[in-house]
């Protein structure tokens, strides 16, 4: 039944001669070539010529995303509201916050102890473990169909955010800022397949590189490859960021996750450990961007001592 009109449609097009499918096909070729040349332009390393366009679209689209997320928030908060009628919500939040706090303290304990043994003064530890944070909300998430794990947050250049800053939430490391517009910033999550994080096993101080797998949810694991291939991480060891000079792109000492499996491959002669991240990447909402102390921002900055600046 569906075929008959289709055939007549095609016949009509055939009879239509040159002005039927022809221009459409030329147009198709032109559009495909345009898309391919966009890809070619964007694949140039360093400053791609597409970046200004990306930024312009981001400037225009960021507020739209922020507004949409704000409009939807009351509805996504409905389950919370229902629970709060039993006065459970407040308790739950308090306990969750306390739990996260304790967990991140615990995760850092080995690391901190080792640091204190290795470095004498407290100054260095205070400097790298106390950070100022700009709070922000996640307003958009890239779909899995795009095969990259990025989110948009509602704080941008006007809040003091720049590319290559660390993004955390109260459970641990979230990712790093890729690019900013005036009001929004794009964050690359550490579970993205292209993400590489310098990491340190808290207990043994072994350093390694963490690679994302590109999956969220229960599959959202990270692979840790230690630089020293004789070192064997133990299961249940906690992993924190290693950090680099100047604190970019990742500041040191942020909890990332816990070792769940250890594989040793004879062929690669290296140890590979699977890390279960502390952060639930499927349900990201409130995050903090680590900024240098004294950053000027259009919103309240959480200072290292917990006060609002």
């Amino acid at each position, binding site marked *: 039944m*569906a075929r008959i*009109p*289709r055939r*007549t*449609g095609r016949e009509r097009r055939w009879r239509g001669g040159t002005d039927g499918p022809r*221009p*459409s096909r030329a*147009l*198709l070729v032109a*559009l*495909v070539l*345009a*898309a*391919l040349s*966009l*890809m*070619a*332009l*964007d694949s140039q390393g360093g400053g791609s010529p*597409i970046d200004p*366009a*990306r930024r312009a*679209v*981001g400037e225009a*689209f*960021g507020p*739209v*995303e922020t507004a*949409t*997320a704000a409009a*939807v928030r009351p509805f*996504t908060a409905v389950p919370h509201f229902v629970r709060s009628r039993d006065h459970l919500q407040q308790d739950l939040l308090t306990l969750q916050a306390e739990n996260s706090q304790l967990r991140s303290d615990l995760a850092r304990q080995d690391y901190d102890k080792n640091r204190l043994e290795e470095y004498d003064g407290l100054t260095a530890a205070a400097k790298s473990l106390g950070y100022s944070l700009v709070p922000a909300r996640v*307003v*958009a*998430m*890239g*779909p*899995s*169909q*795009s*095969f*990259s*794990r*990025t*989110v*948009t947050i509602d704080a941008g250049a006007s809040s003091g955010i720049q590319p290559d800053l660390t993004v955390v939430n109260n459970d641990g490391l979230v990712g790093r800022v*890729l690019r900013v*517009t005036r009001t*929004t910033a*794009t*964050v*690359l999550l550490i579970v*993205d*397949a*292209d993400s590489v994080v310098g990491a340190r096993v808290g207990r043994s101080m072994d350093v390694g590189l963490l690679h994302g797998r*590109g*999956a*969220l*949810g229960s599959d959202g694991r990270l692979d840790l490859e230690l630089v020293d291939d004789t070192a064997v991480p133990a299961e249940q060891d906690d992993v924190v960021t290693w950090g680099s000079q100047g604190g970019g792109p990742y500041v040191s000492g942020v909890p990332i996750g816990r070792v769940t499996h250890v594989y040793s491959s004879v062929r690669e002669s290296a140890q590979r450990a699977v890390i279960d991240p502390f952060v639930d990447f*499927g349900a990201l909402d409130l995050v903090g961007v680590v900024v240098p102390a004294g950053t000027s921002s259009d919103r309240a900055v959480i200072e290292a001592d917990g006060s609002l600046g």
Partner: protein
Amino acid sequence: MNVLRAAAAALAVCVAVALQVSVFPHLAWDGIVPDLCLLVVVGAALTRGPHFAAVLGFAAGVVLDLAPPADHLAGRWALALVLVGYVAGRVRQDGRPNASTVVATVAASSFVGTSVFALSGIFVGDTSLGIGEVFEVIAVSLLWDVLLTPLVLPPVMALFRRLEPDRSLA
């Protein structure tokens, strides 16, 4: 009329992108959301034919490629949606397409669109994912798109039909 039509199409695409990145992640299954842009392009293709749909697909794809939080190579969604618009437009009939044709077209378009996007990523070395996961994403997004077809396609097709007084121009 032309300006009005372009404005309406642009508005539909913007609404689709905003919903896709800001609303549906709350309902997403493993981060996979319905591809609303693709549905808009298919709706345009079924009412206006391949010519218009390919152009709209290119525009929608560029927006998807550039709007935050996109981080893939620009042009990949544009390529995928141009092909979707063209292929779906060839299905267009002279009469109104019936429901099963629409659903079949959406399913085929979703498969083509997501696959072309994934393949382009593999060819240019932009994706480093296993085939298994790629197939999972293709299957789930196909399911999502078909599920949302009854909600999205009728208003989109009505919009484009209303903006098209003369069929022979398409």
